[in-house]
Structures are given as structure tokens and as C-alpha cells.
């Protein structure tokens, strides 16, 4: 059957109207199937064995007794695993060496993969993996990070410089009427999406097929093709529903292992990580030690700005937690210095975790601004207004839009900031001291090349295909609204298909770039299709398909400072006799371009702010110096905020038009995290008079700080 097109339909206004999620019904009924939940005939189960030493060599993997155990099909390790090739540059650069699983006998940290036991059932695989004896030749290790570590170095060769400097810092500090020189630390933090990493691999029709939980099936497919030296067209990765990612769901050992085992056994194999294994296999946020020096005139105008950030990397791959980047955008000064240094340790390689760089960096920077406001006797919002730069402090480029002050104004109005007594320790409610604090938020609005295909179907509907990922952001729904507006049809006529590497290259859900990048590609294809359809004619049975590729359009984008901004406010209650800190309310006002779906966008902002709260008060992975292992590697040992910790959090936005940007959409997945911990720490200072420069603000830290800072009590 064919349908005749009827010219240009009216625009629908789908973008900007709140919509519940397309997959919502499936999620609330349990019908939505995640990667580890799709049945396959003859499925075998792999269970990982990880190293228990922090440095050394594997002397022996005693697999014979394990192979005799019930149901055990194979034990893969460095002595028998298929070879993989890690000598390539993938979509995210050179691969993490941990992807070259079982290729040698070296152990660079606790939790390095040393064997995979494959069995008929998960119970059999687990018991066999526990029973497997691995013998090591252990070498001395170092796993403890500290500020000023003698092995720290300034990394080279990143696409963004590790260091920026202008002006004479020492002279500017000396000439400043007010100086803040403060050191801050943030601990090792872990993503811990609720769904553990899971992948099923099988060979089907001559192709390697992976059913996975990831943030970008295209990227995973490319990496697997490289690793196994396969034609890219012969690898297919799908990831329909993803139970959270936050940066951790890239290409990780489990996909490689599933593919290896499926190849060896010639049957489908599923590998699911345990929560404990996630502590060493899927990346984490490095601990940081940061020093911020601010020099200002008495009126708060900055003369000197320096932000130096140290973080951990592993011995196998360099990763830089870019905590000092935020100051390159936020504040200018005659003397302006930012620096990143890393310390290589015998620990897993850190990675991107929701708001990488900005999350820990904003804690230090926005705390320091609050300290400067205190020293200058200024309102912290007025201090920021005084230091609003004309252009990028380091780049010199103009801002495409910068509505930071509008966010502060609107936030201050709604939060009731004007009624705040700036003196600390003045408000009390029973055993609780009360305080409020604020901080700025910022995250870059970047885009990456993506492709999309939009098909006008013969039945009058439209099918969009794009290798996007919906990891909980609402991308599936947002892209449907974007497509509807671009095609000028109601969203009900769009069939959105995502998360299949066969749909072509596209950006991952990461860097707050997913929805922006995918929308661009969808708008391009849909716009062209709409033009074609406007010419009239008959739609053939296979439909009419237009493909887009945004590579050229993105390259043509004018160089500007393009960011989302925001202002966060927090009210806390602190019991200095028990050390307990409770957040009573938070408000975030953001300027983040065009908001596609207000319902899910609000949830993204609030979710990010909840991360800020969790980072401020709870999250901390503790590494044992003696063993190099994480102590309490589970969700009882690693606390993320629970329901009872999270109060009424509100998020809203101001208009943020950007005429220079063809897509107008900025990412919103990360900015909510940025500044939240600082707003809370600043509020704790306001409540108690004590600065907390080390996260998390645990009860023992509040207790140790004592109540000495409580004037008026």
C-alpha cells in the first residue's frame, strides 16, 4: 500500500511540552527488558575471577580441578584466551588496557581480570570461580593517594592543555587586599548505576552479536571490531534499555569476555558483573587534592586566580580528572593559572563519571568563592556578579550565551536569599543549626558527529533510526519530540528506534552531548525528508529514507564559549553534637538552551543535584593501603544518598536563546551535579561557622570540627 503525501504539515510544538516517557508503561510493569534479561537457547554463564594482589605476575591458574566441577564448560585465562589486538585508536582514543583481557600475566591492580569461568548455570559458574586457585608472584605496590605526592607529573598530549597561565600570579596575589589560599579534597567516587554491567555475546549468521547495557552501541561495536580484528560491519551491538550509566557503561571487560567465550564455546555466553566487581572494572572518579588561591581587591574584584588539581591515574593508562577546567570558563583575573597533575598508582584506571572535572572542581572553586565573599564581607552572589567575565578568561572567545546572573537572580528570588543573615551560626531549630549556601554551575555544550536515518513509511508514519542510547535521560522521548517538530507531525506518528549499532555512527550518551548531538542529526534528516515530501508524490512500499551526517555542520560551527550555566541554593541543618548533616531543601535554576521535554528535563536537573547532595555528604570509596583493595566494596560500604537523605529539591530554568546555534539544545545530564556539593558545604559553613574542605562531610568530621565556630551560642 502506498500513501500520497499531502504537502507540508503544520508544526506541532512537541518540543517544550511535557511528555511522559514512551517506554514508561514497560518500565512500570516490568516488561522492559535490560541486557541480562533476554533469553537465548543454550545460553552459558561467565563469572569473572579478579586479582587479589595489587602488583605482580600470575604464576599459575589452577584450572584443572575447576574444569571437573559440575556444569563447568571453560576456564579462560592468559594462558589460553584468544588473542586480541589493542593497538588502535578507538572512538575515545587508545583503548583502556584492561580491554585486552587475558593477554599477559602482569597484574597492575587489585581487581584486574585474571580468569573467566563459564558454566551451564550462574550458580555453577559462581562456585567454580570462587573455587579457582590463582597463584601470584607479588611485588610491592603503592595505592595511596595524597596531595603533593612525589611521583606526580603534569600530563602531556591531551586535546586540552593540562596547564594554562597568564599574568604574574605571585605579584597579583601580593597586590591583593584579600587573599584566599585553601586546599580541598574529594574522595574516590563510583558510578554504581543500579543495573550492573551485563553483556550477552553470540555468533549469528557470521556476525558477532552483543546484547549489552551501554551508553553507545556504536562505540562498543567499533571497539570490539578493533579488538577482535573483525570487519566493523560484522559486529552488531544492541542496548535497548539501560539501567543507568553515568560514564561507566563504555566498552568494558565484560563485553570482550562474553565475545571471547562465545567464540571459544560457539554458543551464547552472558557475563554479568557483580556489584563488588564494579568497584575495579568500570572506572570511577579519581580522588582529588586541590588548591585554590584567589586574590581580590577589597570590593571583591579578582586580581589573581589559581586552581591546581591533583588526581590519580593508573600505571597502565593515563586519565586526568580535569578539576581545574571550570575556572577557565567562570572567572577572569589579570593573573590566571590552572594546572592538572596526576599521580600514577597501582590502582584501576579512573574514568569519566557524571560531570567529570566539574564535579570535584566546582566543589573546590565554588567553596573558595564563598570563602572570598566571607573575607570581603560581600554577598556571595554579588561577588560572582562583580567577576562576570566579558569573554572566555583563557580562550578570549565570546560566550554564545551566558545567563549565569539571570539564574542567580531568579534563584535568589525564589529561595528567599534576600532575607539571609550573612553571619554564620545564627539560626537554630531545636538541636539543629541552620544555614544556607549557594554556588554556580557550569557545563560545556559540545556536540559530536552523528548520523540518523528518517523514513517516511508508506502507512503515513515515520521511522527514525539512530544509534542513540536512553540510559534514563529520556532521550528516546526527547528525540521523538524533536523529530515530530522537524517533520511537522504529531509525536504519535513517530516510531523511534535507538541503541542498535546497525543504525550507523552516532555520539554516545555522555559528556552532556547525547541529546544535543542526536537531535542535530535527527533534525537534519527530518528537515531534508520534509522538503522532499513537500514536493509531493507517492511513497513506495519501502518508504522514503533520508540519512544525515552532522560531521560537516559541527565542524562549521563558529568557535565560541558555549556552555550551560546555573545557580544552586541549599539549606542545611547540622547537629554539631552528633555530626549529622541534613539537607532541608535545594533549588537549582539553569540556563541550558532549549528544553525539549520539561518533565524529563526537570528530572535530569534534580537527579544531578541529588548527586551533588550525595557527593557532599555520603560518597566515598576507601582504599586499603596495605592491600590496595577497596574496603567495604558494596552498597552498604559505599553509600549513595537514599530516599531519607533527599528533601524537596526544585529545579527550573530561564530562557537561554542562542541564535548562533542551529540546534539550540544544550545537554542537561551533568550540570545539575556541578556546584551542588559546594552549595551544601557553603550552607554547612553558614550553619556552623566551620568550613568543610574535605568531602564527604561525614558526622565524624563535623564532630571533630567541634562547635568552636559557633558565634552567638
Amino acid at each position: 500500500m502506498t500513501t500520497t503525501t499531502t504537502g507540508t504539515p503544520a508544526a506541532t510544538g512537541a518540543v517544550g511540552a511535557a511528555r511522559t516517557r514512551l517506554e514508561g508503561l514497560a518500565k512500570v510493569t516490568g516488561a522492559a527488558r535490560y541486557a541480562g534479561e533476554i533469553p537465548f537457547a543454550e545460553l552459558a554463564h561467565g563469572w569473572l575471577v579478579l586479582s587479589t594482589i595489587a602488583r605482580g605476575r600470575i604464576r599459575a591458574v589452577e584450572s584443572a580441578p575447576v574444569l571437573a566441577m559440575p556444569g563447568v564448560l571453560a576456564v579462560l585465562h592468559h594462558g589460553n584466551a584468544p588473542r586480541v589486538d589493542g593497538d588502535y585508536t578507538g572512538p575515545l582514543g587508545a583503548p583502556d588496557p584492561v580491554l585486552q583481557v587475558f593477554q599477559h600475566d602482569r597484574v597492575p591492580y587489585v581487581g584486574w581480570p585474571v580468569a573467566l569461568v563459564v558454566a551451564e548455570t550462574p550458580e555453577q559458574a559462581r562456585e567454580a570461580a570462587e573455587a579457582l586457585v590463582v597463584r601470584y608472584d607479588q611485588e610491592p605496590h603503592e595505592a595511596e593517594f595524597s596531595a603533593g605526592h612525589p611521583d606526580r607529573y603534569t600530563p602531556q598530549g591531551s586535546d586540552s592543555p593540562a596547564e594554562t597561565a597568564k599574568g604574574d600570579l605571585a605579584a597579583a596575589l601580593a597586590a591583593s587586599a584579600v587573599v584566599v589560599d585553601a586546599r580541598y579534597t574529594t574522595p574516590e567516587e563510583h558510578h554504581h548505576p543500579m543495573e550492573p554491567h551485563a553483556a550477552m555475546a553470540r555468533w549469528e549468521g557470521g556476525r558477532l552479536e552483543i546484547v549489552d547495557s551501554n551508553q553507545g552501541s556504536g562505540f562498543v561495536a567499533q571497539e570490539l571490531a578493533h579488538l577482535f580484528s573483525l570487519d566493523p560491519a560484522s559486529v552488531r551491538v544492541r542496548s535497548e534499555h539501560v539501567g543507568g550509566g553515568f560514564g561507566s557503561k563504555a566498552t568494558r571487560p565484560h563485553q570482550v569476555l562474553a565475545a571471547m567465550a562465545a567464540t571459544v564455546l560457539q554458543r551464547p555466553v552472558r557475563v554479568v558483573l557483580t556489584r563488588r566487581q564494579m568497584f575495579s572494572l568500570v572506572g570511577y572518579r579519581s580522588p582529588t587534592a586541590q588548591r585554590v588561591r584567589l586574590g581580590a581587591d577589597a570590593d571583591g574584584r579578582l586580581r589573581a586566580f589559581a586552581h591546581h588539581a591533583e588526581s590519580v591515574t593508573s600505571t597502565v593508562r593515563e586519565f586526568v580528572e580535569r578539576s581545574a577546567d571550570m575556572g577557565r570558563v567562570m572567572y577572569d583575573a589579570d593573573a590566571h593559572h590552572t594546572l592538572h597533575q596526576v599521580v600514577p598508582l597501582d590502582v584501576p584506571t579512573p574514568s569519566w563519571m557524571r560531570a567529570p572535572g566539574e564535579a570535584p572542581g566546582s566543589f573546590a572553586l565554588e567553596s573558595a568563592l564563598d570563602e572570598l565573599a566571607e573575607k570581603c564581607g560581600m554577598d556571595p552572589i554579588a561577588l560572582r556578579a562583580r567577576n562576570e567575565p566579558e569573554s572566555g578568561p583563557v580562550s578570549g572567545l565570546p560566550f554564545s550565551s551566558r545567563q549565569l546572573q539571570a539564574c542567580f537572580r531568579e534563584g535568589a528570588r525564589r529561595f528567599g536569599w534576600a532575607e539571609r543573615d550573612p553571619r554564620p551560626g545564627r539560626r537554630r531549630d531545636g538541636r539543629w543549626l541552620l544555614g544556607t549556601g549557594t554556588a554556580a554551575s557550569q557545563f560545556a555544550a559540545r556536540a559530536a558527529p552523528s548520523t540518523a536515518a528518517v523514513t517516511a513509511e508508506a502507512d503515513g508514519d515515520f521511522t527514525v533510526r539512530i544509534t542513540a542510547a536512553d540510559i534514563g535521560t529520556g532521550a528516546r522521548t526527547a528525540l521523538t519530540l524533536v523529530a515530530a517538530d522537524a517533520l511537522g507531525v504529531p509525536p504519535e506518528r513517530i516510531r523511534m528506534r535507538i541503541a542498535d549499532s546497525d543504525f550507523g555512527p552516532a555520539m554516545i550518551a555522555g559528556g552532556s552531548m547525547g541529546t544535543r548531538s542526536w537531535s542535530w542529526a535527527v533534525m537534519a534528516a527530518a528537515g531534508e525528508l520534509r522538503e522532499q515530501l513537500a514536493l509531493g508524490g507517492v511513497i513506495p512500499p519501502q518508504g522514503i529514507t533520508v540519512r544525515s551526517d552532522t560531521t560537516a555542520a559541527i565542524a562549521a560551527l563558529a568557535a565560541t564559549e558555549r556552555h550551560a550555566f546555573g545557580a544552586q541554593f541549599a539549606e542545611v541543618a547540622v547537629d554539631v553534637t552528633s555530626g549529622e548533616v541534613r539537607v532541608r531543601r535545594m533549588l537549582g535554576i539553569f540556563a541550558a538552551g532549549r528544553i525539549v521535554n520539561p518533565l524529563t528535563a526537570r528530572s535530569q536537573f534534580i537527579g544531578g543535584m541529588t548527586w551533588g547532595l550525595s557527593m557532599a555528604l555520603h560518597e566515598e570509596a576507601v582504599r586499603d593501603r596495605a592491600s590496595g583493595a577497596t574496603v567495604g566494596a558494596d552498597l552498604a560500604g559505599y553509600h549513595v544518598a537514599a530516599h531519607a537523605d533527599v528533601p524537596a529539591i526544585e529545579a527550573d530554568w530561564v530562557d537561554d536563546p542562542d541564535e548562533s546555534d542551529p540546534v539550540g539544545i544544550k545537554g542537561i545530564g551533568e550540570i545539575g551535579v556541578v556546584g551542588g556539593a559546594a552549595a551544601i558545604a557553603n550552607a554547612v559553613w553558614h550553619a556552623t561557622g566551620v568550613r568543610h574542605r574535605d568531602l564527604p562531610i561525614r558526622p565524624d568530621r563535623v564532630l571533630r570540627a567541634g562547635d568552636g565556630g559557633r558565634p552567638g551560642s
Partner: protein
Amino acid sequence: MAPPTSSAITLNINGEKHTLPVDHRTTLLDALREQLDLTGTKKGCDQGQCGACTVLLDGRRAVSCLQLAVAAEGRVITTIEGVADGERLHPVQQAFLDLDGYQCGYCTPGQICSALAVIEEHAAGWPSAATADVRPEAGVPELSAEEIRERMSGNLCRCGAYVSIVQAVARAAEEAAQPGASSRPWQADGPGEPGAPADGEAVA
């Protein structure tokens, strides 16, 4: 002689009886997911520390990851797949859908099963750690946002959708409190098992 390490058992799930062989090591969670294709119940931590695997056992919420399947024989089991009344969503499900009480959706079945029980436990007069005075004479506290947060704290949501989850639970609880509301559609098929937390004191 060593005792057998597996058994044939019958599980009563969502009103249906399933007879299956289980390795004694198999948890109820794994039996549901790996043997019965009931994958709505999620495995988040497998250690009772996240709540994603929450189901109802004899009408009470429980983490199925720490419940051995063999020990669940004889219990009335309700999973997320048994919460809706056919095509008609339970008010708790509808509230999660309408108010966007989730993001990635992985903790959602556990949150919903937990919320069903929270509403029941509160109706049965159970106090919580957020209850200022636990003495029965003090009566039942209102199911405030603070009470909901405390009672739902066994269900972690890493996306940070707590704010809308609490709103959804509050709306569903209000609806359940309306006269004539049935908050327990899953009991319609139940063979009169002890569903409600019967030992709690009912306080009008």
C-alpha cells in the same frame, strides 16, 4: 550420605503455580529471572543493599536476592508482573508513570513493590523510624513526605529520581485512602493467605 543439593519445588507466583527444579543455591530472584522468565524483578546488588529485587511474600515486601527459592515454597509471591490488573495499571504504577517517578527504570519495579507495601504497612498502623512517638496511644502518623522517604529508604535510585518517586507514592497513597479504593488487586487471586501485616495494630 550427603543430602541432595537440589529440589523440585512449586512456587505460587502472581496467582499461578510453577513447578520447577531448583539448585538450593538459587535465590528467588534468580529463579524468577533465569528459570521463569519473570525478569521484571531486578538484580541491582544481589546483597540486600539496594531494594531493586523487592517482591511481595505473603503480601509483605522482601528482597528476593536474599530469599532462597527453595525456602519460598509455600509462600504467596507477587512480582511486578502481577501488580497490574490485566491492562489496567495499579494506581501506584499509574502515579509513577504520570509523575515520571523514575529515569532508567531499573529500580522501578522494586520501588513500586515497596510502595505498595508502604501504603499497606502505614494503613496497618506500623510506625517507622521517622515516627516521633511509636507508642500505640500516639496513633498513626500521617503518611507525610518524611514518612514516605524513611519507609522507602530500602530502595536506592542512583538516577536521583527520589523527588518524583515520593510524589508518586504520596499520590497513590491518597488515592488508596479514598473510600472504596482497592489497593490490593493482586490479592483478588490470592488464596486467602495472610497478606496484610496482620500483627500491626490497626488504629483508626
